[in-house]
């Protein structure tokens, strides 16, 4: 007998509404809203029960976004630049949970640069999204550290400094999953999110997410127009869930597959030149080249599924630490005499 599945629900019997958040209070057209929508879509399509996921953020318009998706998930909106530490501690409580961290360019590579670098080094399993708009949205339009040299903004003059490239920092910082995307390319954002959610380690997604209010002039490198005109996708990316067949056959050399720990696969169909996201050695040259040609390179830039995650280093029980009964966290009574004896 074939049971008819309600087409309005996913495999865990939830509808898309179950993944929604509060109505957004961000500006209409803000790139961050479109990222939120793709998070909802990706989690729905991946059949992740919202209770299995935890959201984190710092401070900024981007960091407000977690209120606007996955209301049934736990979340913690932390301090400016310090989402990574918050997430690190919290994820130890139950390492079976999936973490999403939402941050901004100011939050990540200005005030939060230190924590950003260290969370990558520790390979915390966390989907770390930087909604990158080249400005501080929430404090009304100052230059952020990703603003391009020479960018002119209302009331701010011209940006005299060189920009920080988040992808570059992530690659150099040894993140095990590094991608760039563009909020104006929702399909790619979604597929990358799915891949990132299946990654066991830190997954940094630098998503160009235009601030329509303060930095969306056509010639600004973080605007919709710029993105549309300059985006070069490295590949067409398709996420294939565990136990599903790859439907499309690609000719030899036309695609590359990456196997994820949970049995899913990422299929990368070649679009232009050959690109191997498992080879760290050529990335910086590629980024330099793209920079020179003023291209916005998007796609899966680097992946390493072989690195141990933070939690693999701690020899923890399978049962979540936050569910251990008191007798499992207090040493037995007879040990106290031994301890006193050790004191002399």
């Amino acid at each position, binding site marked *: 007998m074939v049971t008819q599945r309600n087409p309005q629900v996913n495999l865990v019997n939830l509808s898309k509404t179950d993944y929604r958040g509060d109505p957004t209070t961000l500006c209409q057209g803000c790139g961050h809203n479109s990222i939120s929508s793709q998070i909802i879509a990706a989690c729905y399509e991946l059949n992740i029960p919202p209770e299995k996921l935890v959201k984190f953020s710092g401070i900024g318009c981007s960091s407000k976004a977690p209120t606007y998706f996955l209301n049934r998930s736990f979340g913690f909106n932390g301090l400016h630049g310090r989402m990574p530490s918050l997430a690190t501690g919290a994820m130890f409580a139950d390492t079976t949970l999936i973490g999403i961290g939402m941050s901004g360019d100011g939050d990540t590579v200005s005030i939060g640069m230190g924590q950003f670098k260290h969370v990558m080094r520790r390979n915390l399993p966390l989907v770390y999204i930087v909604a990158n708009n080249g400005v501080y949205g929430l404090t009304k339009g100052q230059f952020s550290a990703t603003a391009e040299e020479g960018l002119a903004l209302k009331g701010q003059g011209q940006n005299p400094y060189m920009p920080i490239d988040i992808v570059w920092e992530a690659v150099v910082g040894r993140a095990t999953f590094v991608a760039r995307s563009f909020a104006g390319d929702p399909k790619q954002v979604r597929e990358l999110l799915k891949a990132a959610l299946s990654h066991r380690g830190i997954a940094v997604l630098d998503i160009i997410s235009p601030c329509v209010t303060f930095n969306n002039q056509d010639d600004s490198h973080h605007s919709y127009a710029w993105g549309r005109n300059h985006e070069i996708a490295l590949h067409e990316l398709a996420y294939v869930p565990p136990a599903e067949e790859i439907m499309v056959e690609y000719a030899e050399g036309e695609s590359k597959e990456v196997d994820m720990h949970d049995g899913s696969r990422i299929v990368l169909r070649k679009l232009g030149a050959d690109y191997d996201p498992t080879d760290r050695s050529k990335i910086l040259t590629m980024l330099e080249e793209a920079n020179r040609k003023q291209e916005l390179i998007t796609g899966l830039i680097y992946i390493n599924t072989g690195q141990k995650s933070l939690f693999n280093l701690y020899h923890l029980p399978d049962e979540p*630490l936050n569910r251990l009964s008191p007798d499992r966290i207090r040493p037995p009574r007879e040990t106290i005499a031994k301890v006193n004896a050790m004191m002399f």
Partner: protein
Amino acid sequence: MITDSIINDFSITVGTVNGSGSQTSNLTLQRALFKMGIPVSGKNLFPSNIQGLPTWYTIRVSKDGYLARSETTEVMVAMNAATFAEDQAAVAPGGVFFYADDIEQAITRSDIVAYPMPVEKLARESDAPPNLRGYIANMVYVGVLAHILDIHIDRIRQALDFHFNGKEKPIALNYGVVQNAMAWAAENLVKTDPFRVQAMDATDGYIMASGNTAGALGAIYGGVQFVSWYPITPATSLAESLNQYLPMLRKDPATGKNTYAVIQAEDELAAIGMAVGAGWGGLRSLTSTSGPGLSLMTEYAGMAYYAEVPLVIWDIQRMGPSTGLPTRTSQGDVNLVYYLSQGDTMHVVLLPGSANECFEFGWRAFDYAERLQTPVFVLSDLDLGMNVWMTPPFEYPNTEIDRGKVLWEEDLGKIENWGRYLDPDGDGIPYRTLPGNRHPRGAYFARGTGHDEYANYSEDPDVWERGMERLRAKFETARGMMPKPEIVTKDEADIGVIAFGSTDPAVREAQDHLADDGLPIDYMRLRALPVCDEVRDFVRSHRRVYVVEMNRDGQLHQILSLETPDRAANLKSLSKNNGLPLTADWIEGAILAEERK
């Protein structure tokens, strides 16, 4: 010629060069005296330096059990040429001056007894390889002092066995030098000073531990599950003790796996961020630091207060402001921790007064933090934390672990209307849920921004005030829950002293001396903030109350003045802040000066 012996009642100070390895010798002396049953304390008065600067170690032996630092040094050991003259000048009249005979400087005092020690010679003659000779040289003074002061050689052996963890080679090497030095002294020195020790049984049932070791062990018995920290003197040894003892004591009985995780963070911003995350996640979470680190932790401490996240923060105080005197003790962070962070933030603070109490508060702090859903600060200091104290043995926790008001799936199933910040019990303490809770109504969004009773973002003025009033009510609940002060009374006292923390031995000693001199005082040792009714009663029931503390501005005095404004004029601040542990002499002098005004 020996006049009347002075037995078990004097101070020894050893002056050495920092980094020369004298700590082993000093601890050996201290431990040997302890094993002879004589009450003893040791304090390392060391510079912020790895090698080269002068450093002193003071050991006080006291048949009466007074363990505070003493203003006087009766027995000086001069191993450092750079401080030879200064050390000689510091010996109390009639005292003793042991000195390394390779220091070619004059003995200028005739009112003290001077003994040379062939330090270099005996070190050279030992079996020690050349690279260890400098260290081993310090054992020479152990041997010479042992002979002159009558310290039992077996006890020294016991101390060395302990120090080197039973490792034959270093024990034999060090012990050999001690024995040779003793033999040399027996042959070459004639005792002409009155100081000696005699075995007692006054240390039976005591152990020796530093406050930081004790605090770490206490935390382990408190079920600590998450530790994030960043190295800083004098807090480092607390985290390092956790690293040392956790693997021994905290394997999961069910699986043999670790029931804890320790992360050395990249800085204190991250250390507290992680600890707040873990506390929110439902782990018994701890971070330890000192002043500069605490400054960096300020913002997250306030968030934890407002978002109501339990965690334990140990502040092992050192001298501020700024980098200050990193290796000198102080009680200068009272106001800082009490109010740490912007707005109307108020914190619960535990004030351990002994190593044993560091252990007790080590575990209790988690119960308070989780019961109250707030950061709990444990305010120790360098003297208490880093020095080794004679202290009663640690007692196994006498109450069950209290995880506070946590709702899991089945609990939520029975509750219609749960809101993270509702106060259904009227004690200001809400119910919380933890990530991983699968109940569809279990999740909430924590934030440091304004929120209503259901954890929704809100800027509503009434909601804000309501939330802050509830936090105040919760603080009042805390007032009644925290450990009560300890009171030591004297007959017919009508004045009192209030103090806390590491000054306890000095205050007790001063209290005894003053009573002997006809000025009985009652003594209240605070063990927590906010203060409870008993403290107000104490202030109100005494004609005058002195608040003794180690900072410049009388910080506890300020807090107590706010708590008892009607008696503020009768509260006198006695504060001293020179980086050295307080002495009974100073307290007595300060009180007498006031009383005789």
